[in-house]
């Protein structure tokens, strides 16, 4: 960060001043009369649930969108970006939620795209000041997400920005990476820069922020110095109800559990009692291996078992094989080795249709891309896989019957849509996810439900609905597998949690044991959890939090032991 003259007069001019910003998309008002002030030398957090307007605000400051009304001032001067280049020229740097890196170019080429003078010197300086080093020759597409995030941040810092905006930057980071990023933010602010941190995680806010603005439904719900805004006050501002009314899983999704544990209070956990059912387990994954195109192992002998009536979570930093696991389960990717069975049916190489028939429901990670067809109606999305049931005169589609059936589902699942003919894309994210879930839960028989990031991007109400549905499915005897990057959500929701690390799955951890969070945290970093791997010979590497980030390609060979021997699920005591 460039040293700024610290004259008192200059210090009083806010770094960024937003006055009465409004932005609508069609009939939807994404931002409504939003004002906020960011002082230089501070980290200003913009908090809010998904859909509260955080990203829109970010795009308005960054010049990707233009506001309908309202003004911005940057260090006292009027600022009206018409394109991202204007924001860059005004010395604003952004770290986007979705990376802005050209995947087919190398890291060095991506940095050169910025066309900055003295690039090498700048790269060295960022490495010195922030400890962020990069392999300039690596192709971005070959890098794990954590490293890409680092490239993205270095890219922002190279410009020596006056204002740094980060949009949900920690979603793809492990605990150590998150900690490092938050420290970097702090350091930038301490040197006189201004940082806007956009997040929905209260824990991050409490650790890093100086001031905060809370958005709800596109409006400013409140804000001020964080010293005067403890979590008890932030939560109602964010979600419109008090923290006490949230169950632990919900608290987890807004990073509240972590916070309350930090401050010493604890929340009660209400584990599900799984239905006692004999016979084969609901889902059995054995020694699954998936090789990437470059010969690396996306999945490397992963094994897992989900019993009937049980909810099993898969934790881990993104990019450790979770996506591939779900792809194999859903049938979009064939494993190189290993087997998958649902109930007593082997589905390793089954078509998606055969998987459905075997009783496997899948909620894909990318809802818009894999989970539904946004351009088609809700009814079509519900019944696309079984249109044969809606025939008229042998040839034609009986749309009326489809509509009726869809109406029933909409009511049963409390899905807010104008009607069964509404295009999926017109629904909110939460209602879209409810449609997907309703469709997958309607399988008969439903033996197992596998869901990836089922609550990502949803507001608290929808999260609650999704959690309830998954618990109900388990209560009815189905096995439920949940992949999530929200550890707190998993801890509160699951009967057992396994950790994905470099394509392997750890032995399960009981989330109700006292130090479960710490153990899982260590497992996410690749440390072997000696006690949980008792079935196999423990080959232990240094299990410390100071280990290099798992995403770093320079990390020595994987110390995690193979975890083939998984004991059958034992019902946890309530």
């Amino acid at each position, binding site marked *: 960060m460039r040293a700024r003259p610290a004259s008192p007069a200059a210090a009083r001019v806010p770094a960024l001043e937003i006055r009465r910003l409004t932005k609508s998309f069609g009939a939807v008002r994404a931002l409504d009369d939003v004002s906020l002030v960011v002082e230089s030398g501070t980290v200003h957090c913009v908090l809010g649930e998904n859909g509260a307007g955080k990203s829109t605000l970010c795009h308005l400051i960054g010049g990707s969108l233009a506001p309908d009304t309202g003004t911005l001032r940057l260090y006292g001067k009027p600022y009206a970006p018409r394109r*991202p*280049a204007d924001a860059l020229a005004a010395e604003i740097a952004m770290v986007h939620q979705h990376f*802005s890196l*050209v995947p*087919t170019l190398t890291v060095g*080429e991506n940095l050169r795209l910025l066309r900055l003078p003295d690039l090498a010197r700048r790269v060295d300086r960022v490495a010195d000041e922030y400890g962020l080093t990069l392999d300039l020759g690596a192709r971005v597409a070959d890098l794990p997400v954590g490293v890409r995030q680092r490239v993205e941040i270095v890219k922002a810092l190279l410009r020596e920005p006056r204002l740094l905006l980060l949009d949900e930057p920690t979603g793809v980071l492990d605990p150590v990476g998150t900690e490092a990023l938050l420290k970097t933010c702090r350091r930038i602010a301490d040197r006189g820069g201004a940082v806007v941190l956009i997040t929905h995680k209260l824990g991050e806010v409490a650790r890093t922020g100086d001031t905060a603005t809370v958005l709800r439904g596109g409006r400013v719900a409140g804000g001020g110095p964080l010293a005067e805004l403890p979590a008890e006050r932030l939560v109602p501002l964010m979600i419109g109800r008090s923290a006490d009314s949230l169950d632990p899983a919900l608290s987890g999704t807004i990073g509240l559990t972590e916070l309350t544990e930090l401050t010493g209070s604890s929340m009660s956990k209400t584990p599900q009692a799984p239905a006692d059912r004999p016979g084969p387990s609901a889902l059995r994954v054995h020694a699954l291996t998936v090789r990437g195109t470059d010969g690396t192992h996306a999945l490397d002998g992963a094994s897992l078992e989900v019993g009937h009536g049980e909810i099993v979570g898969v934790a881990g930093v993104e990019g450790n094989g979770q996506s591939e696991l779900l792809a194999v389960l859903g049938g979009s990717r064939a494993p190189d080795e290993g087997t998958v069975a649902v109930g007593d049916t082997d589905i390793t190489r089954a078509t998606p249709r055969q998987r459905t028939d075997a009783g496997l429901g899948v909620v894909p990670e990318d809802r818009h891309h894999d989970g539904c067809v946004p351009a088609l109606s809700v009814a079509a999305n519900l019944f696309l896989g079984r249109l044969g049931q809606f025939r008229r005169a042998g040839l034609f589609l009986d749309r009326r019957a489809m509509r009726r059936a869809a109406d029933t589902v909409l009511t049963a699942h409390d899905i807010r849509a104008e009607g069964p003919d509404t295009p999926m894309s017109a629904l909110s994210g939460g209602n879209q996810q409810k449609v997907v879930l309703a469709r997958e839960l309607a399988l008969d028989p439903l033996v197992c439900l596998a869901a990836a990031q089922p609550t990502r991007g949803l507001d608290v109400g929808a999260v609650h609905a999704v959690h309830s549905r998954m618990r109900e499915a388990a209560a009815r005897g189905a096995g439920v597998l949940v992949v999530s990057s929200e550890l707190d959500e998993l801890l509160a929701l699951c009967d057992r949690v396994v950790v994905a690390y470099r394509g392997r799955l750890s032995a399960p951890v009981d989330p109700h044991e006292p130090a479960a969070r710490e153990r899982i945290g260590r497992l996410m970093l690749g440390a072997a959890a000696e006690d949980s791997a008792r079935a196999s010979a423990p080959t232990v590497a240094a299990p410390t939090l100071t280990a290099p980030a798992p995403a770093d390609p320079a990390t020595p060979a994987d110390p995690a032991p193979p975890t083939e021997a998984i004991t059958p699920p034992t019902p946890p005591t309530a």
Partner: protein
Amino acid sequence: MSAVLDELAAGGVRLAVPLLLASAGELLSERAGVLNLSVEGMMLTGAFAGAAGALASGSAAVGVLTALAAGLTVALLQAVLSVTLRADQIVTGITINALALGGTTYGARLLFGDGAADSVPGFDPMPVPVLHDLPVLGPALFEQSALGYLACAVTGALAVGLARRTPWGLAIDAVGEDATTADRCGLPVRAVRYAVVLLTGAVSALAGAQLALSEVHAFSDNITAGIGYLAVVAVIAGRWRAWPTVLACLFFGVVQALQFAAPALGLHVSAPLLTTLPYLFALLAVSGLVGRSRAPAALTVPFVRGT
């Protein structure tokens, strides 16, 4: 035998020179994400305007200038349609070619009447001393016209000067791979696309002028006869990389020259079969049966700024 070989090499290079020039431009367009099917139209317009300019002024050099102006005009039309108005690039490409064919045919009737364009001022071969005496390659490479040497120089300059390791080349690749990211890096996405399309128009017009002013010193209806499409195909066969595209152009040139040399070699090869060979070759190259190939990710995708 050696005479046949000479002729084959010379004929191959002669056909390859305009092809090289046009595909050098097309490669840039496609790398930036614009499938510029209108190269054919740009070449044809260039050939026509070159002939008209040369005829009117009596100077071949003026012909080159009018060719450039005409090529840029067609390119501007293509750029406005596909970059600003985001019209379908396949429709605009094919239709601009039809417009160019109709327009030049109509114009030729109007301007040249009967036979006036059968002989226009052009460029004569300028053998390079010593080098043109080399066996086979000498007559092929070093007995070209001034415009021919210029064409080779421009092709080389584009290939080297806009390679990915140069700042401009890198910008072009970024725009064609991921326009949103390029935009967020502060690159002027639309301006880059305009620039490459205009550049393609200029070099394609030069290629057209080379056909009309260096080789036959005349303009006839549809003089390009699909060379522009062949340039697009060469880029595909070269899998969007510079040197393989150059090789594809040379190969296509030699295959075409074989049509004329085949009888002398005592070969019976169907001429239409030889004409088709480049397309089959490109099909093999692009189908992944011979190694892997990947088009720029944003090819034919117009850029809209959004979230």
